[in-house]
């Protein structure tokens, strides 16, 4: 069966055959052409698509294997969602040591993209907390890969975009928490320098730090936003978990995000907080996953979808580089409701192709307005490349091959570990 599939950005589209994996002990099914593991499809661009090839759907591998409530060590199949883990672990006092901004990603996907969270400066990437995983290759071989056993395969597969084989199951270390609540402190800041100062000052005492910035503000207001720092709260009662889940029911023909709605929203959002500092006790769900409560939020960008852009730039000249980037974005009049800004820490990532590295990371969405959008992103790439930064493959649908190779100079060391029968739209685009 050939199916037209999309990634989370709803751009590009690809025709591919689907094969469901449901038994971790079973051999890989036979397929023609190339294959690619596909979890819950939360990657934004074409790194989870395989036009004219096969997708090996791993969501059917969604069984928990063992959990030790004394040590927090969890074994589970690769198609388990982070949401499934939180559902049973939080009540027992355990939490994900690293989580991205959506809990609807699979464990296999989190490893394959070596995802990061708001605590990168203290906890590093997802793979730092992975004791090991089983890698199943198209030649039928199975390998247990850990930082000590088949360590080269571990490094190639963590962040390896699913190209080294299928992860069937993994062992993770969870971290202790005393409850489901977070102590959250929000600081309004009016320029980028303040963000950098707040970040530096918060690093040692706050586990989670992130900022929302107004990407539509220009001139004096450029780089204003809210800096949010948080720690897990000690046990005790907090506000109840929010229950209602909204959803975007249809895809509008055109994007609802335009220069007018963008400026209005960002201005309102910036001013929603009266004082400079606000404190709140918040359930972990709205804190970590603000957009997960709106089902199919990616539809608001209309039928043509959107492109996310996430880059990291070195810390030395971060203020100057970020100013350049935000000026380009503000001048274009496009961009998302609020951009996300965060300082990565010094921790080295385990994976050859892992994205995080020391510096400032900026992420935002752009409605797909065709040529103009691609030109803007190209200009942003000019700035990022000149500064010696990188763009995140999991969120990319358009970076040039020469850019990718400059951002990830170690990419060729991945070659011997690639499964010869695996490929993706992204990989063909940046390597062929």
């Amino acid at each position, binding site marked *: 069966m050939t*199916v*037209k*599939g999309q990634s989370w950005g709803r751009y590009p589209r690809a025709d591919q055959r*689907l*094969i*469901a994996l*449901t*038994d*971790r*002990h079973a051999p890989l099914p036979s397929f023609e052409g190339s294959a690619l593991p596909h979890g*819950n*499809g939360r990657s934004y661009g074409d790194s989870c698509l395989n036009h004219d090839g096969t997708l090996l*759907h791993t*969501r*059917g591998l*969604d*069984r*928990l*294997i*063992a*959990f030790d409530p004394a040590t927090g060590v969890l074994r589970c*199949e690769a*198609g388990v969602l982070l949401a499934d883990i939180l559902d*049973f672990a939080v009540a027992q006092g355990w939490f994900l040591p690293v989580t991205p901004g959506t809990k609807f990603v699979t464990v296999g996907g989190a490893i394959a993209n070596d995802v990061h969270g708001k605590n990168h400066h203290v906890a590093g990437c997802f793979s730092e907390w992975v004791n090991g995983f089983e890698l199943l290759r198209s030649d039928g071989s199975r390998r247990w890969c850990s930082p000590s056993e088949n360590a080269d395969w571990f490094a190639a597969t963590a962040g390896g975009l699913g190209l080294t084989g299928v992860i069937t199951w993994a062992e993770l270390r969870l971290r202790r928490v005393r409850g489901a609540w977070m102590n959250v402190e929000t600081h309004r800041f009016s320029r980028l320098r303040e963000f950098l100062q707040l970040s530096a000052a918060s690093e040692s005492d706050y586990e989670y730090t992130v900022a929302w910035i107004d990407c539509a503000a220009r001139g004096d207001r450029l780089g204003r936003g809210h800096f949010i720092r948080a720690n897990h709260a000690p046990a005790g009662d907090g506000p109840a978990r929010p229950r209602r889940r909204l959803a975007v029911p249809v895809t509008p023909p055109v994007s609802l995000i335009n220069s007018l709605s963008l400026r209005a929203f960002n201005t309102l959002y910036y001013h929603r907080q009266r004082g400079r500092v606000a404190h709140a006790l918040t359930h972990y769900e709205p804190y970590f996953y603000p957009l997960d409560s709106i089902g199919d939020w990616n539809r608001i960008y209309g039928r043509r979808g959107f492109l996310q852009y996430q880059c990291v730039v070195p810390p030395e000249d971060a203020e100057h580089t970020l100013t350049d980037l935000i000026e380009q974005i503000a001048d274009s009049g496009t961009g998302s409701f609020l951009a996300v800004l965060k300082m990565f820490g010094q921790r080295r990532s385990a994976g050859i192709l892992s994205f995080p590295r020391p510096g400032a990371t900026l992420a935002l969405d752009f409605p797909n307005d065709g040529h103009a959008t691609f030109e803007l992103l190209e200009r942003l790439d000019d700035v990022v490349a000149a500064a010696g930064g990188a763009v995140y493959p999991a969120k990319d649908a358009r970076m040039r091959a020469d850019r990718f190779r400059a951002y990830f100079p170690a990419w060729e060391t991945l070659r011997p570990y690639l499964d010869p029968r695996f490929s993706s739209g992204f990989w063909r685009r940046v390597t062929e």
Partner: protein
Amino acid sequence: MRRILIIGATSAIAEATARQFAARGDALFLVGRDASRLKAIADDLGVRGAVRTATASLEVTDFAAHAAVLEQADRDLGGLDTVLIAHGTLSNQRECEESVETLRREFDINALSVMALLTPLANRFAAQGHGTIAVISSVAGDRGRMSNYAYGAAKAAVSAFLSGLRQRLQKSGVNVLTIKPGFVDTPMTRDFPKGALWAKPEDVAKGIVNAIDKGRSVAYLPWFWSLIMLVIKHVPEFLFKRVKL
């Protein structure tokens, strides 16, 4: 805590339903064909909160083996409160038209094996005077259609059998639930666009648990299939035979 026997425990709907039971802390006995898949599911249910899980392999068409497995489940759980029968195959209609052998095999799996399992179970439940017997039939049993009447006829037999059993066990305090799912989305196509009629196994599972808790007799899942089938059942035969369904 309920003591629950599930036959056909590796099916997507059964597995999703078992997870609902596990999260409530029930005890589960899982029966299926493939021992390694049963083990994977049992481990999962244990982590999710089941107080006890055990498994047994069974080929449902091996009628002689039924009694031992039912006995084992009863002994292992210390009695049974609920049984869910969920096994089945989606028959290939064309092959059933060409081969009597295939037709008979499909009937053995989808109809006869179910009735055979229900016979001793019904007696056991009647004797104990309480419990729920839930069986997954199908909307396909409500009216034969050219595209799958072999499967539909087997499910019709099961639905009629359950209807009679329900009447018989009414006075014993045993509830008999006929579950009629419509189109159910499998892991393979979960994230890809499909019509509004498709339901996820998790949603069907919630409907099953809810129907068991409420002591319902027949549950169309999702509910709107009761309306769809109401219409389909009442199309007059002279019109129905001209329609391609």
